[in-house]
């Protein structure tokens, strides 16, 4: 006998969405000239209309950030800056449920994730960085390291508020001011964050938020008043940014794509590994730059793992993101759904075997069932290209070195997972893997104290931890070698 879950919907009454939003510039909301709709990807319902940031909006925002930097923010002591960040962290905790529901509505990710992962990490990120503001002399960057000035920050749609926190918290803690461009499809929590800045009485212009599309972001990158770029998004756009700033003195941190390998050795704890594989690729619909999108199994245990994985995948609940029982929510946009469908079709065409559990997907909204491809080779596009969806490519290996070589065989180097009960093997594998974040017997764990960022074409620099501060500070005076 089976017990069906009854729906357990999180009420949406806790959020109030305005019909129309402006930009947040110099402490207040300013309407743009043109607007575009933002939708709930689970229902295609139009949630609101956002301002499309123009060159003049960016001008105003950069001017406000510049003025705030010169007049107020750079004159505050680290201690006082820190207190603003602590205030923001506390208000975010107070309003956590409201943010979680709004994020789920706007992004399509399950409420279980926004409530238990995204929003708590957002508050933790501000709390962590608040404490750095008056301790920067001890960050290993020399005495009195200095901020750049105005940071232009561009964030993606997969973790909208969390990416805002990863960008804004270290920028403010280090004494920079900010112009932030949220992703076109997921700006609502950033605009709600603007209200938090108001409640925290953050000085006007320290945080400015301009909504819009790729052209708005490009204008921000190219603005001469911006001294530092922080971008999270695709490798393709990351390279464009690197070229765009080549003739300038602008500094950039880039958190780009990945094709993370989850390597399972023959001595792995099998049930934990299966959970880790599921979390690695199906967390957040696979819209994760560090997702474990390649499963690399030692041949002797491959059959057993795949069998157990299929049993586990059949229990993944795909559906209404506001349902507290939902594991896999909606794909964020029609555009992304099309991209996933196209790459999956290429997987079929190139000869890999596709499998998905039976799912009843809604007619409205954007959905993609959890999917694995077996029989994938290294030459397959689904083993090389980032799909950014709930699609797992499975490869096998015989010797540990072959497993490592396969794991390293992409232009990316963001994340990797190791599953083994043998400490010496795990440490050996962690040394061999060319990736910035390695999870051993776990996957997709994040923490503000833990640096995050990629090797190779997965980007430049780190975010989080002591290392993330370097992205926002010019090295101070050092005593030198004598």
């Amino acid at each position, binding site marked *: 006998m089976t017990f069906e879950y009854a729906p357990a919907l999180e009420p949406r009454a806790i959020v109030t969405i305005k019909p129309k939003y402006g930009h947040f510039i110099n402490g207040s909301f300013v309407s743009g000239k043109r607007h575009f709709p933002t939708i709930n990807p689970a229902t295609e319902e139009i949630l609101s209309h956002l301002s499309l940031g123009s060159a003049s909006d960016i001008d105003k925002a950069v001017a406000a950030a510049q003025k705030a930097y010169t007049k107020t923010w750079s004159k505050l002591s680290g201690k006082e800056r820190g207190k603003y960040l602590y205030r923001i962290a506390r208000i975010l905790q107070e309003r956590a449920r409201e943010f979680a529901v709004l994020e789920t509505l706007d992004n399509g990710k399950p409420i279980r994730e926004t409530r238990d992962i995204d929003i708590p990490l957002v508050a*933790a990120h501000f709390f962590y960085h608040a404490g750095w503001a008056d301790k920067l002399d001890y960050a*290993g960057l*020399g005495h009195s390291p200095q901020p750049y000035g105005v940071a232009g920050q561009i964030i993606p749609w997969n973790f909208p508020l969390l990416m805002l926190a990863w960008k804004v918290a270290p920028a403010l803690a280090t004494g920079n001011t900010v112009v932030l461009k949220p992703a076109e499809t997921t700006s609502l929590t950033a605009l709600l964050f603007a209200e938090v800045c108001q409640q925290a009485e953050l000085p006007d212009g320290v945080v400015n938020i301009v909504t819009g599309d790729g052209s708005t972001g490009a204008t921000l990158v190219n603005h001469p008043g911006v001294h530092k770029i922080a971008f999270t998004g695709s*490798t393709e756009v*990351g*390279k464009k940014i*690197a*070229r765009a700033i*080549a*003739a300038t003195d602008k500094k950039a941190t*880039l958190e*780009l794509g990945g094709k993370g390998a989850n390597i399972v050795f023959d001595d792995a704890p099998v049930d934990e590994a299966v959970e880790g594989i599921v979390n690695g690729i199906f967390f957040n619909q696979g819209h994760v730059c560090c997702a474990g999108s390649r499963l690399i199994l030692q041949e002797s245990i491959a059959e057993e793992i795949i069998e157990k994985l299929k049993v586990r995948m059949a229990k993944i609940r795909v559906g209404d993101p506001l349902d507290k029982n939902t594991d896999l929510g909606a794909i964020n946009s029609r555009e992304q759904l099309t991209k996933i469908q196209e790459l999956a079709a290429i997987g079929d065409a190139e000869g890999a075997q596709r499998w998905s559990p039976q799912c009843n997907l809604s007619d409205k909204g954007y959905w993609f069932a959890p999917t694995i491809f077996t029989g994938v080779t290294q030459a397959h596009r689904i083993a090389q290209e980032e799909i950014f969806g709930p699609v797992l490519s499975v490869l096998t290996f015989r010797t540990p070195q072959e497993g490592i070589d396969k794991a390293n065989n992409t*232009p990316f180097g963001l994340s990797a997972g190791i599953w083994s009960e043998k400490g010496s093997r*795990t440490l050996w594998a*962690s040394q061999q893997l060319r*990736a*910035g*974040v*390695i*999870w*051993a*017997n*776990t996957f997709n*764990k994040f*923490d503000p*104290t*833990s*640096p*995050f*960022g990629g*090797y*190779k*074409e997965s*980007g*430049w620099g*780190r975010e989080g*931890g*002591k*290392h993330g501060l370097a992205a926002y500070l010019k*090295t101070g005076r*050092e005593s*030198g*070698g*004598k």
Partner: protein
Amino acid sequence: MVATNRIEVKKTYKLFINGAFPRSESGRVFEVHSKKGEFIANPCLASRKDLRDSVTAARAAQHGWAKATAYNRGQILYRIAEMLEGRAEQCAAEISTTTAITPLKAQSMVSEAIDRWVWYAGWSDKLSAVTGATNPVAGPYYNFTIPEPLGVVVVTASDSFIDFIDAIAAAVVSGNSVIALVDGGLSVPAMTFAEVLATSDLPAGVINILTGSLDELAPWAASHMDVDGFDISAISKKKRAELKVAGAENLKRIYIADGKLTPSRILAFMEQKTVWHTIGV
């Protein structure tokens, strides 16, 4: 019996690739003159193929160099200082002959260069202690961050022997393999320095030196997809942008030194790796 007007045996200047001294495959050379205008040497004018060969050698050597213990790498760098001490007079004489630098100044430059090797040698086994971290994550995980070498790094040098040494030493100490591109009169002492390397127990291919034209070689290095890092400190300001644009194709780590002797230049060609491991019984 010593001849009074003995004919000096002059050195043929070649490249330094994979631990050997080949001529440029292109057969090209350029003339170096003394500041009085006398002919000094015909160093090789390295070609694109020479650069590619160097990258192949550097890539092959890198894994073993990175895998060597930090203690071992430190000793080899210290050995370079020892060997350079023995060649100090020769290097100083070449610097003062081929550049505008006075003999006295050239001697102090070489002394400083030797001391720099000692300084960098000591960094090999301190980088992870100074720049790594254990991170107190909110959960049952042991989490640490350690610096690792980037891979293959190309560095540039044009005028100063000390800058040449700094650029190489900063990149190589952490476990990167290096290709140094050298321009003009510096090519002469640079190839004498290659002879120092050849007798320093440094594995073949870990440091390679190409003499020639930075204008010609740098764009090829910038666009090479198997080069991970590029120190463009010796490139003139107006030519840096095009190199950065070319380097964006594989998101090369491109660095310009600030002239201070700090570990920043070493860290510019390192990656920080963060490892999480579960804690439990």
